[in-house]
């Protein structure tokens, strides 16, 4: 298997990112700051072989998000995305 297959996807980052985000991050839509692709965060390619997490655009490979835990603080770098959008009334109960 090639090293280029050594990634997971945004689903695997959702538990860690729930420390920061109050809503489900996997169904959030983000736009890549490099190629402009608009994708759900679940579709990002996720690399975990490094300290912390790196999510890359599945189309162009640009780094979308970096997240690391350093001395009890979570550092989040989101500059690889033009925007991240979530439902403003997330999943309201239907009953």
């Amino acid at each position: 298997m090639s090293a280029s297959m050594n990634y997971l996807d945004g689903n695997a980052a959702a538990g860690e990112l729930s420390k920061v985000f109050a809503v489900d991050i996997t169904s959030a839509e983000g736009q890549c700051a490099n190629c402009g692709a608009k994708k759900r965060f679940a579709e990002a390619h996720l690399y975990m072989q490094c300290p912390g997490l790196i999510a890359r655009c599945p189309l162009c490979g640009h780094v979308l998000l970096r997240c690391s835990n350093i001395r009890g603080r979570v550092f989040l770098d989101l500059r690889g995305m033009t925007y991240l959008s979530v439902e403003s009334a997330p999943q309201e109960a239907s009953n």
Partner: protein
Amino acid sequence: MEGTAVLERVTWRVAKVVAVHDETATARTLALTVRDWPGQIAGQHVDVRLTAPDGYSAVRSYSIASAPNSDGRIEITVERLPNGEVSPYLTKELMVGDDLELRGPIGGWFVWRRDQTEPVQLVAGGSGIVPLMAMIRSRASAGSFAPFRLLYSVREPGAVFYRDELQALSDQNNSVIVTYAYTRATPKDSPRPPGRIDAALIATGTWPSNLAPTSYVCGPTSFVERATDLLIAAGQDRERIRTERFGATGERK
């Protein structure tokens, strides 16, 4: 009811093992009860955290296998990896009555909701069957008529999870159509030699693209990439294919 799960802030909870059941020689299902469990949607996963006496901790993600219910009980199925840090403990050491730290439910994208009525194509590679089984069970428990098909790629007959239950479900008026694809060894009556999934298998084992199914593909990364490419080549709409990848080793995280 299902939707309320996502409103809860995700926090670590203590789960108690209430039953264990071996699926194969290397995979075990753990039934857990979780206090104040908010309920889940089929396809979601949990993170499990093990902490050693010296404070070292390891976190792994495991898909929930059971259908949503209201009794605070969930099941996960764990494949034991020879050099795994967490899976040998979960599949060999952990006993009924033991506690486990767990965070979830997690994920709102790779899910099947009971109000979905369109045809569903499930494509599993190895232990990627687990979240798809939750969808199949959720469909059954909800009395849904959504047309379901499963293409299940697995090493050999002995590596199949949930075999009897899948058989029973597919016997019930073909309520879920199951196609097995064996990669290393086949049963005696298999019409196809062992091999990776290919275009011919996609053609016979999945819904035609004109039915516009929603597809859920789960397995090791290389499997997911291959299966997704084959579905797209067969005319499936890329926007209707949802994927969840395990690591090359099958152990997530």
